[in-house]
């Protein structure tokens, strides 16, 4: 019998305690997996939307750290931006999170400049595109159509006005798949923000380099007080919701780590205390102290490895479930990566090593004569 089988046998001998420990570790790991993947997914989804549109830079208000920055009059800055070198197109975007149905949670309503490049990446799956800038019609993302129970030809009331659903599209970004898109003019009308946008999207020509992008940012900073030019990645990083979700994810990792280490520590310490006599026998039989340390570490590692694997599985299932809950649909697009999952497993094993450290040392320092006297 090798050391691993011996350690496994020890854990089998106490099935209730072993299962409870594994369950506690797996719950912590599941929380880490779910929250981190959701947090990354949220961040990635916004960036994916901007990248898919082909936007190189976004101009918005400096104080804007909310998901949807305060609107501003586009004509105040748009012509100047269009004159900057390498700028191919400057396109306005107005967004609102609105309730458009009593049966569904609020959805994003985007107003995009009609005929601009923002529409190019969408794939029409049903119906037709908007025919002009002033048409009282909207396009629904495939997920939004499903959530709102609407199809082409239906009508949709937004902010007291009725719109025809002219088409359904698919987008690589879940934030767009779950959205209602209309022309910028229509969005400005329903929100009573004539001429205003939340963002100006800038598309640069193919020859623009990183240095040119930095130069454009500097130009905006110096010539347009109150505005900032940032990449989609930077915009996402500034987003309050992303920051909060990241902070929550980090806090969960910390709390789950502490709880996991304490659970393993408690389990292993109890196990050592109960097996003092047994360890004394092993030492009397000639086991080396480092072999005892290895045995305790092996047991702790098996516990956390099993808890980690179960936790990862549970976390993935939990996230998948959340993605399909009516309230969250279209808002979560969790991102799982193999390195991340291995990292989580590594974290789990690390917890085992930390939690098993003191019990292992305690066991290895036992004197056989004292241990054998223990009842």
């Amino acid at each position: 019998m090798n050391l691993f089988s011996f350690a496994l046998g020890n854990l089998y001998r106490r099935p209730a305690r072993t299962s409870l420990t594994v369950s506690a570790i797996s719950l912590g790991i599941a929380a880490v997996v779910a929250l981190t993947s959701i947090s990354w997914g949220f961040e990635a989804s916004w960036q994916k939307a901007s990248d898919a549109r082909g936007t190189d830079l976004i101009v918005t208000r400096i104080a804007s750290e909310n998901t949807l920055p305060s609107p501003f009059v586009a004509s105040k800055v748009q012509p100047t931006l269009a004159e900057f070198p390498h700028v191919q197109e400057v396109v306005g975007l107005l967004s609102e999170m609105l309730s458009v149905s009593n049966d569904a949670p609020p959805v994003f309503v985007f107003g995009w400049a009609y005929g601009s490049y923002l529409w190019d990446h969408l794939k029409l799956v049903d119906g037709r595109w908007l025919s002009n800038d002033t048409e009282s019609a909207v396009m629904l993302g495939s997920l939004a159509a499903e959530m709102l129970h609407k199809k082409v030809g239906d009508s949709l009331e937004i902010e007291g006005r009725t719109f025809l659903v002219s088409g359904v599209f698919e987008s690589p970004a879940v934030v767009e798949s779950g959205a209602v898109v209309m022309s910028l003019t229509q969005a400005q009308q329903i929100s009573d923000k004539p001429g205003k946008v939340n963002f100006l999207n800038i598309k640069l020509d193919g020859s623009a380099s990183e240095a040119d992008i930095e130069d454009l940012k500097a130009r905006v900073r110096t010539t347009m007080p109150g505005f900032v030019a940032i990449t989609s990645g930077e915009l996402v990083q500034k987003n309050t919701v992303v920051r909060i979700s990241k902070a929550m994810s980090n806090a969960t990792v910390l709390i789950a780590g502490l709880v996991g280490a304490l659970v393993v520590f408690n389990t292993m310490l109890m196990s050592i205390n109960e097996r003092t006599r047994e360890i004394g026998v092993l030492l009397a039989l000639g086991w080396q102290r480092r072999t005892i340390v290895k045995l305790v570490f092996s047991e702790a590692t098996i516990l956390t490895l099993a808890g980690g694997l179960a936790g990862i599985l549970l976390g993935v299932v939990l996230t998948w479930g959340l993605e399909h809950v009516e309230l969250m649909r279209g808002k979560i697009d969790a991102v799982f990566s193999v390195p991340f999952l291995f990292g989580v497993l590594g974290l789990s094993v690390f917890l085992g090593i930390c939690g098993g450290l003191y019990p292992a040392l305690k066991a290895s320092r036992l004197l056989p004569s004292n241990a054998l006297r223990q009842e």
Partner: protein
Amino acid sequence: MSGIAAVLLSLLATLASPAYGAEPSATALAETMRQARLSNGFEARMDVAAIKPNGRRAMPFKIAVIGQIGNEKQRLLIRGISPDAVRNRYFAAEKTADGRIRAIEYGEGSAGVAETSPTERLFDSGLVVWDMFGPWWNWPKQELGGTERIAGRECTLVRSQTDAVNAPIREVVSCVDKDARLSLRTQLFDRRHAIIRTISVERTMRKESGAMAAKKLSVTDADKAVTEIEVYSGDEEYLIGADTFTKLDQQKNGK
């Protein structure tokens, strides 16, 4: 969106606060309140849900509040957005030179433009135009009344009183969070000191200026009817159109 808060705050509770450094006097606090409400133009869109004393919820509705609050001119326009029962129904009001609040009602369901009382409830909810102007901050009698804690936040009590014989509201007690520059609770009393309604800030948000403002409010009437108001969109720098207050002006000029 965060801009709305300023407005809404000013409107429904007139709840801003002054106070940096030394304890300000009640008059200084009231002045800060007045200053905090100033706006060249704003729009706030809100979901409103009225809950009757028996717990029954009325159909929720959406409204837009457009306002212009200056030292010389204070005007508000309230427009019903949805559902049909409120859609395109308008209330407009202004503060006149003598400090009075004049209100009119028009739009769908109304026969032309009609004068209405500023203390009347809007859309059968706890919303009242008079409250939105926060006239008590202009009353000459302002007193500090100690401090209190509301939802863990410390606030200073300010008692505003008027001697106007015909005023339906004779006293208002506001509890102002000086750090957040926000009145967390505003209680309105009649001449017999019976409470008429309480306006409470349930949730706050940060405005573009960095100051805090109300995102969610509740209005509790004396009979325990509650109106929940939540701002969902808005514009801190709303461009007031030339025709926004036309009806109000026309009615004033007798056209």
